[in-house]
């Protein structure tokens, strides 16, 4: 565990496409990743997750509730670098599609929005926290993901 880069991977309002792409990129990189990364908090991989500090926190998905917003701020507070992964995190869409619903559409979904405690508007990540790096795409581009991850590794462990 000595000097491994502490990674957190978090999914908010999204389809988790970037998580799936990451698990496929891993097919060719898992041996190297095992050596350099401490996967501290990744629910798709493990149950014993630790939420204390991260060198890199990857966040996918848009922010659909106050509860999600508070969680995201908590992640920012304990992370050296925050990476917004994928279109929903970076632009809001498509998770934020209800923001531009017609008045009739908003009325159709209103009882569900209220019932499940959703925010009236879905936000993108940079609306609530400072984002250090963006990996665009719907899903994220595997090539840009690797390029940015390698750059972060070089920066954090020169």
């Amino acid at each position, binding site marked *: 565990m000595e000097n491994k880069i502490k990674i957190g991977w978090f999914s908010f309002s*999204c*389809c988790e496409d970037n998580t799936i*792409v990451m*698990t496929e990129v891993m097919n060719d990189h*898992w041996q190297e990743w*095992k050596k350099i990364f401490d996967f501290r908090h990744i629910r798709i991989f493990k149950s014993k997750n630790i939420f204390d500090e991260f060198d890199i926190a990857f966040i996918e998905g848009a922010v*659909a509730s106050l509860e999600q917003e508070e969680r995201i701020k908590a992640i920012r507070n304990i992370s050296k670098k925050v990476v917004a992964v994928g279109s929903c995190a970076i632009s809001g869409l498509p998770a934020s599609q209800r923001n531009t619903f017609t008045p009739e*559409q908003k009325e159709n979904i209103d009882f569900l929005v209220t019932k499940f405690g959703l925010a009236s508007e879905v936000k993108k990540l940079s609306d609530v926290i400072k984002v250090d790096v963006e990996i665009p795409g*719907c899903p994220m581009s595997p090539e840009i993901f690797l390029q940015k991850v390698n750059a972060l590794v070089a920066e954090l462990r020169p």
Partner: protein
Amino acid sequence: MHTFDLSLEHITKIEGNATLNIKVVDGKVLDVKFAITEYKRFFTEAMKGKDINAIPAHLARICGTCSNAHIMCSIEACENALGIRPSPQTKILRALTMHGLMIRDHALHLYLFSMPDIFGKDAFLDFDENDPVQHQLLHDGFETKSAGNFLATLIAGRSVHATYPVIGGFLHFPDQAEIDEAIEKLKNIRPAVLRLIEIFKNAPNHFDRKTKYMALVPENSFGYIQGIIETSDGRKIEEKDFKSHLENTVIPYSEAMGYKYEGEGYMVGALARINLAKDKLHSKTKESASEVLNLFPSTDIYYNNLAQAIEILHSVDESIDILSNNKFSPEPIIKGEEKENTVGIGVVEAPRGTLYHKIVLDKDGKIKEGEVVVPTGQNQINIERDIGVLVQSLIDKSNSAEAPLDKSKIAFEIEKLIRAYDPCMSCASHFLKVEWE
């Protein structure tokens, strides 16, 4: 006597988020609430007013792992509405898209989500590379996923939100060099899949549950796109009539709709498919898996894992056959006719079970309304009831052994059971908060 409430905050090693609240009073499980808490993103509302040609790519974004199943199902619904009959080559390419999906997605579930439980590890990456068995499985897992991903990328453009399949055909066609490479990769993983079948055949957990099963069963060979919906009580339902046999069941504490068939919960997924149609598997699959196939039909939910492993083998064998015996050439996209108030329905077998899409056209080819019924929504009621039965049996066992009740052990057993269903919460809403009350 035990009186407590149990809450699991986030179930791990599944897709998406769910919560569970269990109330136990005087040693009896009184209430189980399994709630899918993945926030709704309102796709069926958002599709209204969109052009029909945008719909498959739009609805793909319901889910990052079942994505290509949504695309196939949506395309079927849209072609149905437009009166388009796909070409024989298009049907073959779609079948291959689904095989790539099954291989990749089942492998993700079996190796990364379920297998750690069997080996007493928290994560697949924790497997010991100095142990020959675990070392082999690490390589098997990533190579099997990689082969499925390669196939899907070759045929459909990518595994997630595929770009080549569209209404009326495909935008891109595989070249022979890459087809040869795909065949090689699939042949190379076959031994790994046989090892996978053996692991899940011998896995220690079992949970018997008598329920009805439902799946789309093709006429001739085992597959995921065409067919008639069959039930374990002998009923056959045309795709267009599927929804009329289901009762929507609002689960007030869940963001996902539940469904009943003839007043009861039912199961969809690999277990249902193998139970109903194992005789239609590829001949090489039946030969290699003959011993385990004798275990089916089965009412053991943990054999859903084994059924998925068998399906990976079938998809490997079928894909090798298809790729070896077909030549692909560019074809034009087939156009259809947009008519107001036309209804289009698509039904496919996604990795986790029967998936249903319905669209209704407005004028000018825009969507008036739509509906999506996903497999995990259909399994919700069964999942909830199974958890209740499981927890009761664990309480009764600890009572008869006069042993103290270990809540963390119960929570772990619940998680393993839920993982056997391989639920997909992103789909179900458009990990597990168990609250011990």
